[in-house]
């Protein structure tokens, strides 16, 4: 069974690339290839020039590419927030003060200050996912790959994590954001849509939002709010089609 066929993708530091697709489109296979967990049958995957097939460089690749999965609970290993974040750097055998520095910085980056000693299972869903991201950041990756990081979260947790993704870009990380939610893709610079393992769209996010008529054919659903946005745009309301917040639509209507 071919999970991916001739897919190409580039991610630069300081940008967000969204990968969209229905279940079974090949998104998760792609995620596992980004840090060498899976190899490709053909074609090549390089991270800053390192071929992920080069087993002597596996550790370098894993340090450059942090991966965050859908279920935060699956990624938490320790009994306190700070121990959990320290787990990766400890495995690298780093000196204690360097570990401390990385843990403190990661906690600061994800906004979990004050919760250092908290048991992870007492955190909210959004806090747990931010903890998982902090664990990835403590490895000082240049790229962060996230596989549907918000799909198990409540609305509050979701907006916390989306805000964090924006700040990772601002801090110079390249972020690969895998999602099936069009509204979430609005955060990205570029987008790639996969359908049955093949690339059916590649381009700037603005172009994707202009191509919403094609979404059903790709197995993606136009969110109800995007249906409204399209009707309004067709009626002549001057809209920024990538901003699907209800407040933005209401404002454009009343202008």
């Amino acid at each position: 069974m071919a999970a991916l066929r001739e897919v190409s993708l580039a991610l630069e530091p300081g940008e967000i690339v969204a990968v969209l697709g229905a279940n079974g489109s090949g998104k998760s296979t792609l995620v596992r290839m980004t840090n060498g967990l899976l190899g490709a049958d053909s074609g090549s995957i390089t991270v800053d020039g390192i071929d992920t097939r080069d087993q002597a460089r596996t550790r370098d690749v894993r340090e450059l590419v942090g991966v965050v999965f859908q279920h935060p609970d699956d990624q938490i290993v320790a009994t306190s927030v700070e121990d959990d974040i320290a787990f990766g750097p400890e495995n690298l055998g780093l000196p204690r003060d360097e570990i401390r520095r990385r843990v403190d910085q990661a906690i600061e980056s994800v906004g979990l200050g004050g919760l250092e000693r908290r048991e992870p299972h007492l955190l909210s869903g959004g806090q747990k996912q931010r903890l998982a991201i902090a664990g990835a950041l403590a490895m000082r990756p240049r790229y962060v790959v996230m596989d549907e990081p918000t799909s198990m979260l409540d609305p509050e947790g979701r907006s916390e994590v989306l805000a964090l993704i924006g700040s990772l870009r601002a801090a110079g990380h390249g972020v690969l954001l895998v999602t099936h939610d069009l509204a979430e893709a609005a955060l990205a610079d570029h987008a790639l849509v996969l359908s049955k393992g093949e690339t059916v769209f590649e381009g700037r996010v603005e172009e994707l939002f202009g191509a919403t008529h094609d979404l059903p054919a790709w197995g993606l659903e136009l969110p109800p709010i995007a249906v409204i946005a399209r009707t309004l745009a067709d009626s002549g309301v001057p809209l920024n089609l990538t901003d699907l917040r209800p407040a933005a639509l209401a404002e454009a209507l009343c202008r």
Partner: protein
Amino acid sequence: MSLRLTDISYTYAADTDYAEAALRGVSLDVAPGELVLVLGATGSGKSTLLRIAAGLMEPRSGSATIDDDPLDRASARGAVGLVFQDAESQLFADTLIDDVAFGPKNLGMDAVSAQAAASEALEAVGLAPAVFGTRSPFSLSGGEARRAAIAGVLAMRPRYLLADEPTAGLDAGGRRLLKSLILHTRERAGVVVVSHTAEEFLGEADRVLVLSAGTTHWYGQASDVVADPDVLVGAGLVAPDVLEVQRLARQAGLSIDGFVLDPDRAGRRLAEAGGWL
């Protein structure tokens, strides 16, 4: 016939310094053929309510009955099916058919009848037993696994089905299948769906219970929530996007006569109200 909770309260770690009231004076009732949507933010008491409705915990005060009998573990057994959030993580057997037959067997059904009940349930969730029955539950996609877990509950033929965030984490296609499965189940059972968002089931629900900090913030007809989504906003919840844009447009001065959930209609009405049509 109904599953009825009347004025129930529950306090965790009662009689200790850590006592924390999770529910205070909450009522809920659902009859076969009905869908009740329970909404609330994280920590509002949704999960406690669900455990009580499933007969897993007894309320400290108030009454809980199922078809007029007291609700407890024994009376709920087989009669109330509970689908946990992330239900697919509870699949365990070597083959899907064995996994789904586990519940009925556990209720004392003989092997042949349990297999038949399992086949029927797999059919009902859209996983043809001839194709999926012998597969490992771990070979399924996320959406398939979620439906398989629900089949395990439906195989016990419960009169009431309680589902915690049944569509969380699924893509559009998976959500659509899950939704039609829930609506199909309503034809012969009473269904309670618990969620932190009204986005998914508001249009189909009969009644809505909105919980806030363990108390009833609002309980009434789903159509009244559509007419006045402010009841959600007051409980720290977000109105579905389609309603929220209409609510905000009206707040900003547009004259909108009643809200609608259908996005096509909502879009046209908004364009019209704004003078663009």
